């Protein structure tokens, strides 16, 4: 068994270098295809994170009557928090509301006119974040039903539209990624097939002298895996080289979005290595099968 593996590995290694041009062409194709796949993966991850970020921004704001008793507010808050679609509830009292208003004015560079007010004209509010923005109506209706609630800003239609757009983008992104993955699959498998076909005579001779399927197949499978590994490492090298400038360029992007650079890099490494080695093996396996005993 061990001698068989040693034999296969040695033959794979020889096979790679004896057809160096073909092997390097296959590896180069592998690198380009993996970079393409990785690129679309990054775009898709960014897109998904962006969409999630957008959806997280959806919140229901209920303004409370100035007469509302503290206990009533607490009760309402607990009721709302108990709803399964609610992620968190923030209470903003009137002073905080005024403070936020001032900050907003300052940020926009306008004069702060609040000192001229006799009293605080703003209302306290409950800000409800949702785990599932598509169920905004449930929360809105529950809040509207409470007596201490003055009014709820009606953004149901707006949320629906946003969700339609994010849904379409999410589906489109996934479809494009799948299409790219299939293209990559076919190109890699076909490239490896070319490398195997170039050695059809060798396989033919192996068959005729009575080599078993395993002895014919495994050296090619190992060679395919080797091409995949080499291609994946080279592709990761290119990505690693590009990661620093891209990372710096996108610092803000990662700070805003719920996306960790480390996680993304790890997933990407697994994807590229897995796709490279996996497709290398798959390509060899399928290509050699044509020549095995019928």
């Amino acid at each position, binding site marked *: 068994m061990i*001698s068989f593996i040693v034999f296969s590995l040695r033959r794979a290694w020889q096979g790679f270098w004896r057809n160096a041009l073909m092997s390097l062409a296959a590896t180069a194709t592998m690198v380009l295809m993996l970079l393409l796949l990785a690129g679309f993966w990054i775009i898709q991850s960014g897109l998904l994170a962006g969409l999630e970020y957008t959806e997280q921004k959806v919140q229901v704001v209920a303004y409370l009557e100035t007469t509302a008793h503290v206990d009533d507010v607490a009760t309402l808050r607990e009721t709302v928090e108990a709803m399964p679609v609610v992620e968190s509830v923030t209470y903003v009292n009137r002073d905080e509301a005024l403070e936020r208003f001032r900050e907003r004015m300052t940020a926009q560079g306008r004069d702060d006119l609040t000192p001229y007010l006799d009293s605080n004209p703003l209302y306290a509010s409950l800000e409800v974040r949702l785990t599932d923005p598509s169920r905004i109506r449930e929360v809105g209706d529950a809040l509207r039903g409470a007596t201490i609630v003055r009014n709820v800003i009606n953004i149901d239609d707006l949320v629906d539209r946003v969700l339609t757009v994010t849904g379409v983008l999410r589906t489109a992104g996934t479809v494009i990624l799948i299409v790219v993955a299939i293209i990559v699959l076919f190109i890699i498998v076909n490239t490896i097939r070319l490398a195997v076909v170039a050695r059809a005579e060798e396989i033919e001779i192996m068959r005729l002298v009575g080599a078993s399927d395993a002895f014919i197949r495994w050296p090619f499978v190992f060679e395919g895996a080797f091409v995949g590994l080499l291609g994946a490492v080279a592709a990761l090298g290119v990505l690693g080289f590009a990661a620093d400038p891209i990372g710096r360029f996108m610092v803000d992007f990662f700070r805003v979005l719920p996306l960790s650079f480390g996680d993304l890099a790890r997933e990407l490494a697994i994807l590229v290595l897995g796709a490279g080695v996996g497709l290398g093996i798959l390509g060899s396996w399928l290509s050699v099968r044509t020549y095995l*005993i019928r």
Partner: protein
Amino acid sequence: MTAAPTAATLRDRLAGRAHAAQAGTGEAADRAVLVLHDVTKTYPNGKVALRDVDLVIPEGDFVFLVGPSGAGKSTLLKLLIRDELATRGAVVLDGDDLARLPRRQVARVRRKIGIVFQDFKLLPRKTVWENVAFALEVTGTPGRRIRPAVDRVLSLVGLTGQASQLPTQLSGGEQQRTAIARALVHDPRLIIADEPTGNLDPLISWEILQLLIRINELGVTVLMASHNAEVVTALRRRVVALEEGRVIRDEIGGAYHRED
């Protein structure tokens, strides 16, 4: 003399009691290396390549397979190495019924056959020695057994001195001898030679023939497809003639062409 179907059943032949009467020797072969019984091969496109072929080759025989192109010689050889399966009938090689052979056993049975082709089929980037050793390596022979086996067959075919040369540095005859050495290195029961002299000039052809005869004298059965009328007629061995997929002649000491 035309091949007549023998009375012996397939079971008898499998048991090694095949009668050589069909071959006309009058003496029973102890063991048939190859038995074809009522073999018909129809290709998927409907072309019938072989019809009701009966053939028994006893151990140690030297048989010429002759016939015009398209007579079914190639199909017959493909059946023997189980590249194709008979549509009907049985092909039994050294006791193994090829139609019933599990896929996993095919490689093992192929090692009982050594094949030599018109175009040699040598690997151009391997030396003579490596080409011969290749046949053992890819069948999982331990390294320590490879060297003596390769050296032995190379000396048998007279190529010890050329062991480290590449096929491109060899003459056609030497290339074919390399191929014969490769075919022999497994100690096969049967050598199948498909037009082995087709690419060689007459003198070299005789050399190859002499080599095959010597191998036959060492006890290896030889089945050689040939178009070389001169050689076939001169050697007066057993001749099996195919035409349109049928065995039309099977005689000991025959000529390339029918003589009566």
